[in-house]
């Protein structure tokens, strides 16, 4: 079970010559199996929130719980896809996808089965022996997704996974992420800069304030996951609403506010 409870979470970084409050007393609950999108001005602490949920950044105060356990370090069934994919250039596609399983000491035959499945799912099976350097941006992104899939995670954290892609590849992979979620029903947290992506992939969309980040608003988005949602008036209304909320948070810079 992967219910996520973030309570009064504050994170302060000790920088080289100054301290940065990245998050200040942030509260957020995510239901088991719920897909959520997080959007907010650049530098407001979105990545920090994901890292804290993944157990890679310790809270300065407050707490994060996943399931019934407080998060104190990386958790077995949490998968994280980083802003720059986090692929290792020196490992082949297959070994990159298998990395999480290898670290978790999953026996080799089981590993091979899970990795083959995951690579097939994202359409990279024939590139199993290539290196990331030989893949296109979209393929690298799919590999990062495969690595997370292979873990059979019940909580999938994604930090702007599609931001480096062109519009077509991006829609293609958004569809892939939606399919996988519909199939597996894992809890999903997607950080994105794209309003359309947030509305397409988040049953609720969480808007954060500028740094230090707190929850500014939560937009309910019940039609998410419906067939052809993207072409409905409701989709456009939801996007417009988010745009207004973000403008109010100064997400579009001085000019807009």
């Amino acid at each position: 079970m992967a219910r996520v409870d973030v309570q009064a979470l504050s994170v302060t970084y000790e920088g080289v010559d100054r301290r940065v409050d990245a998050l200040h007393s942030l509260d957020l609950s995510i239901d088991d199996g719920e897909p959520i999108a997080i959007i907010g001005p650049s530098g407001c602490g979105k990545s920090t929130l994901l890292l804290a949920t993944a157990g890679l950044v310790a809270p300065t105060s407050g707490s994060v719980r996943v399931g019934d356990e407080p998060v104190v370090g990386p958790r077995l069934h949490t998968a994280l896809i980083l802003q720059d994919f986090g692929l290792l250039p020196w490992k082949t596609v297959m070994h990159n996808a298998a990395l999480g399983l290898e670290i978790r000491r999953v026996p080799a035959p089981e590993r091979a089965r899970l990795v083959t499945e995951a690579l097939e799912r994202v359409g990279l099976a024939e590139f199993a022996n290539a290196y990331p350097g030989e893949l296109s941006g979209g393929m690298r992104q799919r590999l990062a997704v495969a690595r997370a899939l292979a873990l059979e995670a019940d909580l999938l954290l994604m930090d702007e996974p599609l931001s480096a892609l062109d519009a077509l590849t991006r829609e293609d992979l958004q569809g892939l992420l939606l399919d996988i979620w519909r199939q597996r029903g894992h809890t999903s947290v997607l950080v994105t800069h794209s309003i359309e992506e947030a509305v397409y992939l988040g049953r609720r969309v969480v808007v954060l304030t500028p740094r230090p980040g707190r929850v500014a608003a939560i937009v309910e988005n019940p039609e998410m996951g419906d067939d052809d949602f993207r072409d409905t008036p409701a989709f456009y209304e939801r996007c417009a609403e988010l745009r207004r909320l973000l403008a109010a948070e100064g997400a579009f810079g001085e000019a807009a506010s």
Partner: protein
Amino acid sequence: MKAAVRKIVGYAGAVAILLAGWQVLAMIVDSPALPGPAPALQTFGNLFFAALLPEALVSAWRVVVSMALGTALAVPLGLVLGRSPRIDAVAAPLIFLTYPVPKIVFLPVLLVLFGIGSVPKIVLITLIVFFQILVTARDAARAIPPGSVLSVRSLGAGGTQVFRHVVVPAALPDVFTALRISTGTAIAVLFFSESIAGTDGIGYYIIDAWSRIAYRDMFAGIIAMAVLGVVLYELLEMAEARVCRWTRVGR
């Protein structure tokens, strides 16, 4: 396959240019101390099995052992220093004080301590290679992008696994570059130490031929030493191509 052919053609061309330059230079200088390529190579062929090969093997053994030792000691230490600010804070000043000191000045000390056999030469070359690799490995480990480490840690990797999956492979290409650069230094130091004191090795052979005024023999020795360097360099390059395959993709 194509690449191999291109490489062979490239080498053949380079050898031809070098031989031509040598020939021209020999004609200009016109001294017995600089024989042309034809007589030198002829002597090289005549002496190859009788004198050059045994001496070259002694020299090769010294260099290979030293470089292996220096690398085996320097890489783990350098990587740990690069990844651990606390250990680095203690060790870095020591390194920066000792790195610029030319280790070769310790040769006399080593000769007194270890005699004139292989040991002082191996110690000296090991020392020099050690420092070059140490500094490289440390810098390479420091330059590893935090994202790589974070992604592996998010998968549950502990310290040793981060080393195995990220730090070691990330630093390998730089270590190989440093090793290839060290080959030149190592051979130079080998020649120096063998010619200063000793009774064997290709460096000794060259200096011995020089004192006998046997210039052709001397040149045969010089060719042997050059070949030794080229072979070592190429072996490292081949090893790197195998071990660091990902650096060759997409070019």
